[in-house]
């Protein structure tokens, strides 16, 4: 709640820049720990400050759950009313649930440079419940942040 409040009002652009740098460092280090929290945190900031990026969630209402196979990691991401809320709230009837082997698997899947559901599925690194198109959309949004953070997003 406090985090959300802060996101709404305080130094959003600056904080987003810091998060981007953290993401770039994380990607370069190859260490996956904490990346999902970082990714979602950056995503929620970018959705507030980047008009173009926020078009991704115009009229988009969906509830995503990210959880690992052992169940001790659980993150809920709710897209509603043009904002993203991240919490550990146990969601009823999520639109899409992504179950990953470990945070490294999720890291590889989303941020390896070519997010691809098929590869990750076939390697048994992720599984899912729901309509697979939803992870395609989330994958696009994640990849955009990766490309932005690493300076690889091509100009128009």
């Amino acid at each position, binding site marked *: 709640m406090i985090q959300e409040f802060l996101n709404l009002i305080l130094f959003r652009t600056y904080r987003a820049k810091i998060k981007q740098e953290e993401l770039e460092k994380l990607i370069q280090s190859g260490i996956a720990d904490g990346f999902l929290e970082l990714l979602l945190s950056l995503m929620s900031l970018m959705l507030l400050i980047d008009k173009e990026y926020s*078009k*991704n969630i*115009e*009229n*988009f209402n969906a509830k995503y759950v990210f959880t690992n196979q052992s169940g001790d990691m659980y993150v809920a991401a709710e897209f509603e009313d043009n904002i993203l809320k991240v919490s550990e709230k146990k969601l009823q009837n999520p639109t899409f649930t992504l179950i990953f082997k470990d945070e490294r698997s999720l890291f590889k899947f989303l941020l390896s*440079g*070519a*997010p*691809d*559901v*098929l*590869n990750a*599925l*076939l390697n*048994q690194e992720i599984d*899912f*419940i729901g*309509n*697979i*198109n*939803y*992870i*395609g*959309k*989330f*994958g*696009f949004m*994640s*990849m*955009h942040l990766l*490309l932005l953070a690493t300076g690889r*997003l*091509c100009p*128009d």
Partner: protein
Amino acid sequence: MSTVTLKDISLKEYDLNSFENLKVLRDRLIAAPVEICIERAKFITGYLKKNNQAGDCDAVYRAKAVQNYLINKASVFHDNSLLAGNTTSKGKGAPVYPEFIGLTIWSELETISKREKNPQLLTKEELDILNYEIYPYWIDRDVLATAKSWYGNIKSIQLLEKIMFYVSGKAGCISHTVPDFKRVLKEGLNAVIKEAEEKEKEALTGSGQEAVKHAEFYQSVQIALKGLIIYSSHLAEEARRLSASCTDEKERKRLIRLAEICGQVPAKPARSFYEAVQCIWICLIGIHAESINMAISPGRLDQILYPYYEKDMKDGKLTIKEALEITGCLWLKLGDNVDVVPQASEELFGGAGTAPAVTVGGIDEAGEDAVNDLTYIMLRVTELLKTREPSMNARFHYEKNTREYRDRVCEVIASTLSAPALYNDIENISTLVNQGTRTEHARDYAVIGCVELAAAGRSYDASSSVIMNLAAPLEMALYNGRRYSTGATQWGPQTGEPAAFKDFNEFMNAYKKQAKWLIEQAIDLNERFGAVHQKMLPTPLLSALFEGPMEKGADLIFGGAVYNSSGATHVGFADTVDSLSAVECAVFNEKYCTFEELLNGIKTNFKDREALRQYLLKHTPKYGTDNIFAKKNAKEIISFLYEVYQSHTNYRGGKYRPAYWSMTNHAGQGKITYATPNGRKAYEAFASGITPVSGAAGSITECLNSVAALGSVNIPGGEALNIKFQCLTDKDIPHFGDYIEAYFRQGGQQIQFNIMSYEMLKEAKANPSKYPYLLVRVSGYSAYFNDLNETMQDELITRTQYSVNTGNAILYNK
């Protein structure tokens, strides 16, 4: 009746330099980057978003969306081809079909232009349209999402989404068919529209749901066909407009001629060979407005176009050179589009084109030699252009077609190194007759896509409905209903722990039980997808280009065709048969090891168990040899699968037809399947199609005899036998032809070749720039070697190579 008047059937006096344009057009096409095209997706989606189906039945709603696309489709002239019109708005386009698998590239929209293997270019503007406008509309509406919303997360869908059990074609397409062009050539689409209009009126006088459905169908036909005619008229207008400002006289004349032709066809009858070819091309564009670009196959073009060719030649209006050039332009147009492919599909299954199959030769409906001048013209064009499209196929009837024809086909194979594939008329015709096809229709068969058999223009075959990994039930029999890679998850029925089996029959029965269960899941899913297609995706335009729907008043998707079936092909046949034989002999007959020891070997990928692996590789029976166990098990699996499939009737009232072709799925599925009892290591590619495992058959004769012994009656869906010969010189041609004929006389159904050595392929892999256009026959269709992923390249390299002189296999040295 054979009507060959050519003095030289090889047409050697014509080479690519004989034609001003063909070489330039070909080189440009091959070198052109693939560009994702969103034009169709934009107009179809735009219509559906705006109009919301109010008042329209499904068929009419769909037809209006397709019409909207066709009347807004850009009339672009990218080059100076003799034919007008393009499948997409790009020079070489990958059209997005959001109803099917178009959303699979969503996550990589910003990287697909730069990916290492087969990039597909996407502009920022088009990316934004896909991301913000098109994909959001379809996120819950494509075929798979719709099926999930209707049926929930049922078992058959779960198995599909795991990929390693089977692929269900309908999630991505039906397509895979051979339309009928004879009527549109003879009468024009206006005549078909008029008939539809009259039949609609007649249906409206009837009562009951049936009459209403008929009326709706005829109405949808008119709408879709009018859209195509309008597109053609736009081409004519654009050609005329361009000609007005053209300073090059030759170019101006070309454009004026195209304007005249597109003003005539396909609305009105074709009056010349040139108009007929243009008509067929525009119809194919129209078909792709409705159906995804996967194996929409033009069919027996040498037969269909022959009357126009013959007349023009007699009247002095056409020369052989012109016929070659026009045909060449059609061949190049057929390659103007590829499939949108996500990265993992590239890695697993990549390099496939859209496989539009052209079929030449064979016999006619009366049972007589059908080879004519156009057959040889089309073979020569194939030989000169050496392009991936069309997927070229030559029928051969050893009692009716001449030896000259046979040997000419062999020459073309030697020249192109891989095309065409050859089909045994006697076996294929009897196989189709056995499926209930009338003899004269069976004689008129054409090939779909890879190798599937169609009663051309009369049968709706949906030949890729199921692509089954036969190693999946094998693993499930080994692990009591589980797969190695998914651990304790119980997928199939419990068939017992094999270590406790007392004899081989118990294991074979376990395998059959798992296979039957899996097949029934795949069929269940296909039926459900069929219902989704019936609701969402009727194809009135395609239906109008078929015998049957106009008479029945029913779209193809509702069983309108004369013949209906669903094709189910199989991956990993040879490895599975060899694995069964290995279990039979190593565990039960020879008692070389216990079942538990075998399982431990497989589970560890033969780590520290190389002696076991070598025994399995070298001392257990192999399909492709004369070994009685191998032959027995191969026949048993073929006939078992046939019985299971044929006991099911599909939603259109037809049977399921088993087939054995694999595209690149044998590489892809192999890559995700663990070690198998035949000594195959984890993640190695399977053998392709119905081909024995590489290295199994020591001689070509043994290999061909083994495959021929399977017969064709139990393989009504078609098969791909991939054979590699080291090289062929001119003097080898008759001997090469004799092998093929002997194989056909033994009962072989189909055969296709790569005429290349291990060294050549290894060099092509190491130095792709030395072989930029190397065409290979994969397992059904042709592909450029450089487009294939590494696994597929390696599989091709290691395929057994035979000497045409001795017939012996040449061992592969790594």
